[in-house]
């Protein structure tokens, strides 16, 4: 079980990296990269909500699958589940660690929104793998988010140097940077993103 979890986590960081191979969640990673102090906390939140989303997907799938409009209802149900998870975790944090929530609570919502609908591919991917695989993949996604944010933090610095052309300095160069890095990940998958 542990091996299954580790393998799924490794896949999430490398060949099936959602951020660079797939391009999902990069908006959030870019924002996180602009605040290097919050990368760790954001990554933990992403891992937590990815875990919630994966388990929500696994739990809801048997209920949704028989319905005629399952593919329409699935994302909506998962968004509601993510909203509930957000409310519960935010309420808990406000009660147990009010100081922490005041400082870092604003990162909780985007993390929940970003990872909510990832449960759709998770559920499709890990229905065979089971809970351990889903958990491993969620944790791997947290690690991948940390990696992506850290890489982008340094990339943003490289993209704003004294020689860079004014129209490219900052975000445009960062997007090209992401594109080139995405090419490296595409070398693993040959361009086939798993979802």
């Amino acid at each position: 079980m542990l091996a299954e979890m580790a393998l799924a986590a490794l896949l999430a960081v490398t060949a099936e990296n959602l951020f660079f191979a797939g391009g999902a969640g990069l908006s959030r990673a870019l924002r996180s990269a602009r605040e290097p102090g919050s990368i760790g906390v954001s990554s933990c939140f992403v891992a937590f909500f990815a875990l919630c989303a994966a388990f929500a997907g696994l739990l809801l799938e048997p209920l949704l699958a028989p319905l005629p409009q399952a593919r329409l209802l699935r994302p909506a149900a998962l968004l509601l589940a993510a909203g509930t998870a957000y409310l519960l975790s935010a309420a808990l944090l406000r009660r147990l660690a009010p100081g922490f929530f005041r400082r870092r609570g604003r990162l909780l919502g985007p993390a929940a929104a970003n990872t909510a609908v990832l449960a759709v591919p998770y559920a499709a991917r890990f229905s065979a793998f089971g809970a351990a695989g889903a958990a491993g993949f969620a944790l791997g996604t947290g690690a991948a988010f940390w990696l992506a944010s850290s890489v982008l933090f340094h990339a943003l610095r490289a993209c704003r140097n004294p020689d860079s052309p004014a129209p490219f300095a900052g975000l445009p160069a960062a997007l090209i940077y992401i594109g080139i890095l995405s090419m490296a990940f595409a070398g693993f998958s040959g361009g086939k993103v798993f979802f």
Partner: protein
Amino acid sequence: MFAHGVRLEEDKRAALKNGIAVLPAPEDLPEPRSFRAPGGGAEPAAILAAARTAGIDDEFDGAPLAARLARLAEEQADLLAACCFDDDPFVCGAQAVLREDAAKVADGLLLAALACGAGETVVAAASRSELRALRGLPKGVAAAAAGNRYPARVLLMRRLCRGGKRGAWIGAQACAALSDAVRRGVRQAETVVTASGGGVLRPANFRVRFGTPVGAVLRAAGLREGVRAVAVGSSLTGRTVTDLSLPVTAATRCVLAFPRLPAARAFPCVRCGRCARACPQGILPWLVLRELESGAPEPLRLFHAESCVGCAACDAVCPSGIALVAAVRRAAALKEAGVPDETA
């Protein structure tokens, strides 16, 4: 392999070959007046007064010698070293002065040591072979070879001051001038200037009266066609002059003519780390530059920038032609002004 400093290709042989030539002073310059010499066995105060009256300036930084000796006396310097070598691929005035009259240099050094209370004196020559050729060093004056890595002045002083000694440099010409002032009551009115560089026909050392135009020194050495820049002071830390009628001073040291201008274009850092290896002060110029280029430099990350001695070894060695000394100086200024006061 991991020694600090940088090895620069030297071009001094031609200038040193014929000793020091005397350049006739322009007719409009007044003759220097002499004064009453305190003579041998003078007290420290009398030596300082003689240095002041003679108007002796150190050739390496142009600072008045008397003031420096007084400061060293206050700081209780342990060691005084005569700099009889030139940290420069072209300049060799100090070396020529030592070759001409080592005894006078040593005498001046001893007088200076007496004036500032330094117990240890060292004559530092360019190389071991230079030391072997020395004659007439008095007892109590040690000798040291500078080595071939720039900036040898900084590196050698660190070696001499091992064990926590406080040491200081004094120029060879300043030593000789002090000896003349104390023994013969002669004011400092001339200096030895090296005329060299790719734009000069006959590189040579000239004894030049203060106030002589820089152009006269160059004409005496013969000027090639197509000279585009003339520099004084040093080929590493000096400055260019565009007016050749500027007068020679104690700190002129050299007049270098170059047929080509140094490359003005700088490339981005290639991360070779040569600047860090060249720096005698242990500064990491590439790290300072990186921090400055980040847009929001953090003063606490500008390590040791304030200890820069401005030797420009990093500039000389940088393959990208980046003005690192300027960057480090900027960082030092930022560091001095930029650390926010948390208690405020």
